[in-house]
């Protein structure tokens, strides 16, 4: 995002998008971050389903849940929905 925007001669025709949204890190929007207790977590993956930003991923190799803090906006839906209350929302900048 710090690069100079392209001029009209360089751009492809018709305004077709040429960068994936994942180039834009929405993670710095949040005020609270979800923290998961792996001991309580049953890996039911409900949090993965309900996250509006696809920021909770299932890692096939490690067979574990991963939070992608590059994009998490801190809405707290995962914490609210977790059936075993394994996720708590912690203020950013705090402990």
């Amino acid at each position: 995002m710090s690069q100079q925007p392209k001029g009209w001669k360089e751009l492809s025709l018709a305004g077709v998008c040429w960068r994936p949204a994942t180039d834009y890190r929405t993670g710095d929007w949040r005020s609270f971050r979800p923290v998961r207790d792996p001991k309580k977590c049953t890996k039911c993956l409900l949090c993965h389903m309900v996250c509006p930003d696809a920021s909770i991923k299932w890692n096939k190799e490690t067979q574990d849940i991963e939070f992608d803090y590059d994009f998490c906006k801190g809405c707290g839906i995962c914490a609210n929905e977790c059936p075993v209350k394994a996720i708590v929302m912690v203020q950013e900048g705090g402990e």
Partner: protein
Amino acid sequence: MVAKVEQKTMPLNGDEAVALAAKQSDVDVVSAYPITPQTIIVEKFSEYVANGEVDTEFVCVESEHSALASCLTAALTGARTFTATASAGLALMHEMVYVTAGCRAPVVMAVTNRALSAPINIHCDHSDAMAERDSGWIQIWVENSQEAYDSVIQAFRIAEHPDLLTPVMINLDGFFLSHTLENVQVLADDVVKKFVGTRQFPLVLSHEGKKVPFKLDPDNPLTMGPLDLPDYYFEHKRQQEEAMHIAPKIIKDVHDEYAKLTGRSYGNGFVDAYCLDDAEIATVCLGSAAGTTKAVVDQLRAQGVKAGLLRIRSFRPIPFDDIMKNLETVKAVAVMDRSNSVGGDGGPLFHEIRHILYNAQSHPPVVNYIYGLGGRDMSPTIIQNIYKDLAEIVKTGRVKKFVQFAGLRE
């Protein structure tokens, strides 16, 4: 010029000629809504579909706005698309006219020029297409049904050119051309199909970092029609302007190739200069009034008057050089407008011709006659009087009135 191919003469009105041209051009999707005087186009096309004469999806949409929206997305999916409308229908499409040009979709649209309401009027007038001047569409204005047939076929080649990707509007006068029977020379189906060819897709950069064909294809996903913030909109619009700079060469190449094939040409493709080589007085117009004016010019020439006519065929992009070249040696010019820019001190064509001639060394006086609104007849008498006025201007060196309404009851 002698035609290279055999042609058949058929009695067709402008609408029928347009429908036939679209049919022969192997169009994939036609999405249209009926409006007088375009109705014969959609009716004829429906007949072709019902009789299995054409392999086209004919979508009877519920409004013109949806007609153009669906043609646009069909074109972006990879189909060759065609639609037709007039007047209020074109006005209803207005939003989508701009969107289609902005999305760089090669839609071809025939407009049977008709007055805009209110009061509602179904007759010929250029106000409908004039309201779309700034939209980014190529606009070609035809003089007769033959030219309508020829131009629709050329339009597919022009619009779909991979460097151009700009929609094309073919304008034919409502009723005067759309409903009037003419002998039209028609090509064989396979000749037209060969001429228009198949769609080529330029490559564009996708969000996956690859250059892929510009169409909606699950194998190479593209995002089209995004939101532009102030950091990019201006550049995208400049690209559309650039397309208009590239267009003249393509319009000319297609026109000339077609002329070689059929023996028919329309001036140089951009303007039709009639008796202008040594003309002292000249009129400028669009559309079918040119036919009547040519007859008047012939009469005047027979009387020794050095009269001429410049018919503009390519209105967008406006052929700056051709207009300048043909008119700068004329001593007085009358621009005839079949629409008005209300409160604008003259009609739209007048403004554009004046703008071009402002740079001419000679600086001839340019006057405006607004005529024929709402289908008011433009008779040879009215045109003769215009030439009389021009002769008066040359004689006295003075213009009495710059903007007048010809054929109006005071």
